[in-house]
């Protein structure tokens, strides 16, 4: 793929940074709601938390995750960094792809929790396993997304074997 022009690259980078940071912020909010739903003693607060989690996940987190993945692919393929040449890019791709896949899988239990509180506020201890899972998964998601941000900024050294071959091929003789 031909490297992008500087202007196009900046537009793509802006889109990627916006969706990435937005994703992290939304997951942070989701985590707060999950912990609130798990720990609050007020039935209305618990109900509101799980209903909000479902809306947040469906309308904000999923679109941002997909946007982040797509813009990340565009960024890597449209610049000399490439997709498979440097470990930091490869690890970010794995993080993004896995996080998005797991998010989509988790939409079912998130929806299940929202449906449950629409019927009736869960009693103490009811669905506690699922509620704990949602909080733990949100915490883990936030952690891995922060790792992705750190990789983007620090870009630790390390070219893959494919990347090394490409660099040797491109090196002046």
């Amino acid at each position, binding site marked *: 793929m031909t490297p992008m022009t500087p202007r196009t690259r900046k537009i793509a980078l802006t889109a990627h940074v916006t969706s990435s940071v937005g994703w992290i912020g939304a997951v942070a909010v989701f985590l707060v709601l999950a912990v609130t739903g798990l720990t609050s003693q007020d039935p209305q607060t618990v109900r509101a938390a799980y209903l909000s989690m479902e809306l947040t996940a469906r309308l904000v987190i999923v679109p941002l995750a997909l946007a982040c993945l797509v813009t990340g692919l565009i960024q890597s393929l449209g610049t000399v960094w490439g997709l498979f040449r440097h470990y930091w890019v490869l690890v970010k791709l794995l993080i993004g792809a896995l996080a998005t896949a797991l998010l989509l899988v988790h939409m*079912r239990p998130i929806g299940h929790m929202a449906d449950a509180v629409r019927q009736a506020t869960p009693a103490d201890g009811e669905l506690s396993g699922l509620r704990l899972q949602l909080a733990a998964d949100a915490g883990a998601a936030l952690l891995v997304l922060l790792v992705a941000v750190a990789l983007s900024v620090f870009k630790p050294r*390390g070219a893959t074997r494919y990347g090394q071959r490409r660099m040797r091929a491109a090196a002046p003789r």
Partner: protein
Amino acid sequence: MTDPLAAPEPPDEGGAPRWVKVLGGIALLLVVLIVVVHLAGGGMGGHTP
């Protein structure tokens, strides 16, 4: 942010750098932890049709 057009680093020999291996180990631990939490919470039932 580093200009990607100025990116190329000299080819270095050897396998994956240490930070990749460390991160991989941490990721593995995290996966194990999450699986344990899920199983303790009653399995993966909520994730499957």
